[in-house]
């Protein structure tokens, strides 16, 4: 009997341990000075001038030795909101802040997050006039090492920030070669632990604050031929809120999905048209990888690709949209498009296929290794090479430092961003 009880207790423990942690812990963002009327909106120029690699002189327990600080923006209606993100290596962390001007100082308020667990907390930073704010407000700010010092505190969970932070400007962000930091499923596995669903509009709007310069999104067709964003081939509770519906997504019309199905965070399954519209007009993303998850004619997504490339150009956006071809079936459907050799595309198959369709990008999976020789050959032919889907921190560092790829697709875009920007 005792053995049975022990077995049962063990089983109960295992069942409890399988419970998935989900959700983001609320942080303490009540900072009276930041929220006071004396603190006014900060123009994008000083925010952009803050971009750089900073030495962490205090707060290394959380942030490690270096942080890469980068601005990004999102457009809501007629308002453009700028954020300052900091990417660091420790526990795949990031810090997203808003900036304000208070007198001759700069205030930064935000929250940090680890992607290896659900730990999060608040951050309050300030840059005093003597610590670089005067320079940042100047007409042409040029920052030298130590020229900007951010001082402040951080807290964990809902605690009031009290642990010291000191970030000191070390150098410019690396920008040695064109490189795309691509967020898997518009934001990656981060969406498992954040408030945004993968392949959702809100995830796209926030992707660049997680370090992404571009997104990979999964395209399927509804029964009535509307391209929508959805990864799996069936409705399931990993991706949608419970509504009783089961079965393949292409059994439903777009109207049925729109009215009856909500993504896990409550948003609706977006049409590809909505998604591209968001990227062009509401984000600073510069690359979109349309991963074709369906069999059949690619005409519907080709038409949208062409339309939104034109719209982006008209809006003055340097945006690339490529049709991703992961399978032989998708490749054959692509070849059926008129003028396919001139359509921007990304091919995950062989180098012969890449040549055959004149793909702009070759994208092998990361498990095939660095392949520097093959990548060099691809580049010599005027194409680019991306690698997918790289999530292991050691390999992200290796591919970033020793590889020749022009882009990395990852569920942890902040870590790819860190590894790229801190290079010298």
């Amino acid at each position, binding site marked *: 009997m005792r053995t049975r009880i022990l077995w*049962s207790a063990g089983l109960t423990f295992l*069942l*409890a341990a399988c419970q998935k942690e989900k959700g983001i812990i609320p942080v303490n963002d009540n900072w009276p000075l930041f929220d006071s009327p004396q603190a006014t909106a900060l123009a994008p120029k000083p925010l952009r001038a803050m971009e750089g690699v900073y030495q962490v002189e205090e707060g290394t327990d959380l942030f490690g030795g270096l942080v890469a600080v980068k601005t990004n923006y999102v457009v809501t209606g007629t308002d453009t909101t700028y954020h300052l993100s900091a990417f660091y290596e420790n526990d795949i962390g990031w810090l997203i802040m808003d900036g304000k001007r208070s007198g001759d100082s700069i205030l930064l308020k935000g929250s940090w997050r680890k992607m290896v667990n659900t730990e999060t907390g608040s951050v309050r930073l300030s840059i005093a006039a003597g610590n670089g704010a005067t320079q940042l407000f100047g007409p042409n700010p040029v920052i030298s090492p130590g020229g900007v010092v951010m001082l402040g505190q951080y807290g964990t969970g809902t605690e009031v920030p009290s642990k010291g932070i000191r970030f000191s400007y070390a150098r410019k962000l690396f920008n040695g070669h064109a490189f795309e930091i691509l967020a898997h499923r518009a934001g990656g596995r981060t969406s498992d632990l954040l408030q945004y669903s993968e392949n959702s509009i809100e995830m796209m709007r926030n992707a660049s604050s997680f370090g992404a310069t571009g997104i990979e999104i999964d395209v399927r067709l509804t029964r009535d031929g509307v391209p929508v964003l959805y990864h799996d081939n069936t409705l399931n509770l990993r991706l949608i809120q419970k509504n*009783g519906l089961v*079965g393949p997504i292409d059994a439903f019309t777009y109207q049925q999905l729109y*009215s*009856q199905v*909500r993504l896990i965070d409550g948003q609706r399954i977006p049409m590809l048209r909505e998604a591209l519209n968001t990227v062009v007009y509401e984000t600073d993303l510069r690359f979109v990888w349309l991963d074709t998850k369906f069999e059949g004619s690619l005409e519907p997504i080709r038409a949208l690709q062409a339309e939104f490339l034109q719209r982006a150009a008209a809006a003055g956006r340097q945006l690339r949209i490529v049709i991703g071809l992961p399978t032989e079936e998708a490749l054959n459907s692509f070849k059926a498009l008129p003028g396919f050799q001139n359509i921007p595309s990304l091919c995950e198959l062989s180098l012969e296929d890449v040549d055959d369709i004149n793909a702009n990008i070759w994208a092998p999976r990361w498990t095939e290794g660095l392949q520097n020789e093959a990548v060099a050959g691809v580049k010599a032919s005027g194409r680019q090479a991306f690698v997918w889907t790289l999530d292991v921190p050691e390999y992200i560092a290796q591919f970033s430092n020793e590889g020749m790829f022009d882009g990395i697709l990852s569920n942890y875009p902040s870590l790819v961003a860190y590894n790229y920007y801190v290079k010298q």
Partner: protein
Amino acid sequence: MSNNKVIFSLLFFLSLATSSRGQDANVKSGNKLTAYIGGGISFYQGTPGTPSGLEATVTRIKPAATLRVMWKPDFLLRLGLESGLVQFYSYKIDDNGIKSSTSVEAVPLLLVFSMPVTRKLNLYSGTGYYVMRSVLIYDGKVTTTGLSLGWMLAAAYDFPISSTLGINTEIKWHKAVPTRDGSLNAQVQLRWDFLRK
């Protein structure tokens, strides 16, 4: 820990305890095949999912049916297969110009183990697949199916009416795990010992 896991753990404890009791009682049933066929009522347990932001009228009480064949050897542990129909729940929406109805049901395909606690009281547990079926009536009608792993636990009391027939009253818990559907059934079944050595 979710309620389902607590219930599962408690039932696991219970099954260990009762199997011990069955062995002590030394109940033997002979070597035979027995069929059970019947039906009853399904009470949906848990939260029936409906589209958020829309007012839905949910029906949790539905009909259910069981077809089960058990091999009853000269041991305490019996083995069998079970199928049937479990109508989990349905809902109607009449909100913001959207009028729709959705129903969720399943055909269980389960490998079932059984053990007598007394001569008339039997416990059943089963595991396998539930063939889920959803029917949506909105912008046309869509009937879709999918598979969901799941399990079943039941307690049944048998009233013999002849040497080969009996009336089985059964309380049964169905659980389709990935789709998070659960139902408590109260059923009456005809028992028929149709092959006996």
